């Protein structure tokens, strides 16, 4: 049972849903496994592998099922609308932590250090102060590496949890939550559009794009780091036009767009033209608001 439960959770990490849909409940109120033999096979494999999660994840991820495209076949809607038989990969939204970590990783800001005390990354001013009247009332934002650790290490104050994570359905940690909600809301859009963490990551990625030979290659780079694929022709056209329009707007004398580059603690190389870089940064930011940045397909 232990192995089945754990294997089911790893499966859910990979596919966004478990072989047993109620991953928190294997009892008589829970659902039955969609693939009981597979569940047992994986459970036994897991034990044989010495309960090695990484090894099992690797095995799942190398499977043909995992590597499928999420594009549904023509008759999928008719025969298996819920995709219970995994005829295509089940697209699903990433978790709060994965989304932030991905922005950090794609830009190269991510600090991969393991362990240690909690860290205090960017958080809008006054969040703790607004609620607390005694004890830890002040949020002391840290600097340097602490800003770029994996979200797992972000300080969690239960009476005032990190708001950006809550918007992406991170539970408030009062109850044990095994299956998180997966919602999609305008507040999430606002986080991806305006949270300094994402603007900074976009700037750093923009800097790397700018160092490429030309705009085309820059866009290729962004697509491969953010989505792990090449842009489709219409996407390439779209982004190319966007870059030119943004550049035209930012290089206008009246524009103070270079201020965008001041967001975030990390420094930008001084040899780069500011308007050009800002245009790249905002292209990268636009792509961080694209479907595939938050949805695994």
């Amino acid at each position, binding site marked *: 049972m232990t192995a089945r439960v754990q294997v089911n959770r790893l499966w859910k990490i990979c596919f966004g849903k478990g072989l047993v849909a109620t991953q928190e409940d294997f009892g008589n109120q829970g659902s039955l496994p969609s693939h009981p033999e597979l569940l047992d096979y994986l459970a036994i494999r897991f034990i044989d592998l010495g309960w090695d999660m990484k090894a099992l994840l690797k095995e799942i991820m190398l499977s043909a099922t995992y590597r499928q495209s999420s594009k549904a076949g023509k008759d999928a809607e008719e025969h298996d609308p819920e995709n219970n038989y995994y005829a295509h990969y089940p*697209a699903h939204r990433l978790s709060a932590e994965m989304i932030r970590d991905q922005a950090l990783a794609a830009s190269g800001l991510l600090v991969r250090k393991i362990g240690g005390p909690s860290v205090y990354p960017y958080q809008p001013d006054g969040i703790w102060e607004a609620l607390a009247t005694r004890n830890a009332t002040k949020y002391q934002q840290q600097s340097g590496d602490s800003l770029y650790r994996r979200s797992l290490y972000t300080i969690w104050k239960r009476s005032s949890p990190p708001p950006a994570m809550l918007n992406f359905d991170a539970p408030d940690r009062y109850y044990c939550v095994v299956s998180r909600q997966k919602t999609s809301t305008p507040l999430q859009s606002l986080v991806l559009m305006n949270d300094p963490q994402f603007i900074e990551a976009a700037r750093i990625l923009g800097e790397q794009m700018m160092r490429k030979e030309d705009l085309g290659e820059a866009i290729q780079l962004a697509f491969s780091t953010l989505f792990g694929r090449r842009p489709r022709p219409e996407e390439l056209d*779209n982004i190319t036009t966007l870059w030119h329009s943004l550049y035209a707007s930012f290089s206008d004398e009246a*524009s103070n767009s270079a201020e965008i580059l001041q967001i975030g603690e990390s420094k930008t190389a001084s040899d780069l033209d500011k308007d050009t870089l800002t245009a790249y940064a905002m292209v990268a930011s636009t792509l961080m608001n694209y479907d595939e940045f938050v949805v695994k397909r």
Partner: protein
Amino acid sequence: MNDLNMNCMSDALNRRAFLKNSLLGLGGLAFSSMAGAKVDPNELPHFAAKAKRIIYLFQSGAPSQMELFDYKPVLKERFGQELPDSVRGGQRVTGMTSNQRSFPLAMGDFTFEKYGQSGSWVSNLLPYHQKIVDQLCFIKSMHTEAINHDPAVTFVQTGSQQAGRPSMGSWMSYGLGSANENLPTFCVLLSRSTDFDQPLYAKLWGNGFLPSRHQGVMFRSGHEPVLYLQDPEGLDRSARRLMLDHLASLHESQYQHWQDPEILNRVTQYEMAFRMQTSVPETLQTDKEPEYIYGLYGEDARKPGTYAHNCLLARKLIENGVRFVQLYHQGWDTHGNLPNQIKLLAKDTDQASSGLLQDLQQRGLLEDTLVIWGGEFGRGCYSQGKLTPDNYGRDHHPRCFTIWMAGAGINKGITIGKTDDFSYNIVEDPVHVHDFQATVMHLMGIDHERFTFKYQGRRFRLTDVHGHVVSQVLA
């Protein structure tokens, strides 16, 4: 093999279906609400709603009922005498006074009179309430199970003392949905006043196990009322528009490629986010409010962050289609120096609460807006700490407290429930917190027993397994 599997599965499914059906058959109607079909929020409202919106003026810290509404002349007559054992009846008292040897009755120099046609008692601390009593339905027999602020506020707002359940506003958002496209459904306004403010917790407006779009959105004073609303410094609106236009056409191409309707959903969300960026600050702008408004709400309403300003914002929010506004005053925890503190607290809240009601009425909004005023429990009739001729404190008291409701569907100008001569025990028509919650839901067109969400193997409701609609409240 596959076929065999399928058979096992369908057998098992049939067995479950059979068990379920026979339960229904045997238990008849009684079972149908427990084992019955999944709740579909689309079925709401269950019946015609009296109220479309709620403004909940939460007086956090617990206002003393005896100085404000629950007139008890005995307390003054027997000032300094011990609380009779017959009244306390051996009940435990709450933590901060449980070590006291003496429980002297206390009451400050406040006077009470009956006001309005309804003849409701109001003290001289609340001159503006005196004018609106005929609009109000007082419940003087509220009681709760919790004795400390955190669990008690959590209990009133989520139906459980243990944290983690959805807040009342989240339930409403989940059940009734949004009534506008540009503002959150459930908004939270905090008013900080004094040094003795009680802390608040994000869980009080948390969505619990409901989807996160039902969480209360805390509005802040200042240039960014909703978190992450502000575009980065240096990015103008036309550039943002440009980015979003390109993003929309990217999403369009993405949809053509994947045929997943979720992608189109994202386009809508970005449009909403863009609109919110302007509609939220516009809604919260008070500088165009006419002068008479400040006559209604008081001069404090000019200062962002005050209770009065928040009352004004509450009206603006519901005017623009917000369904639930949760507004807090945080300063009512008067363990000591009560006679002086309560004057400040009354001054902070009296005129604005009353002004809000009048403003709503003038705009015709009171007909379908429910306004609630109240805290998490009451305060004790005996002094906490040393009683002096002109000073005392009061400890927490869960056995009775006073709240009022007004507006949509409310029986006006009445008082429900009665406490004993010491405002210690309830002698008539007790109203439990779950009864109050059931009544609020009823006013919103929801049968609190049928409105559930399945989580961790059982169906949860705001009222747990309790609660009766208080019919006297209903007009």
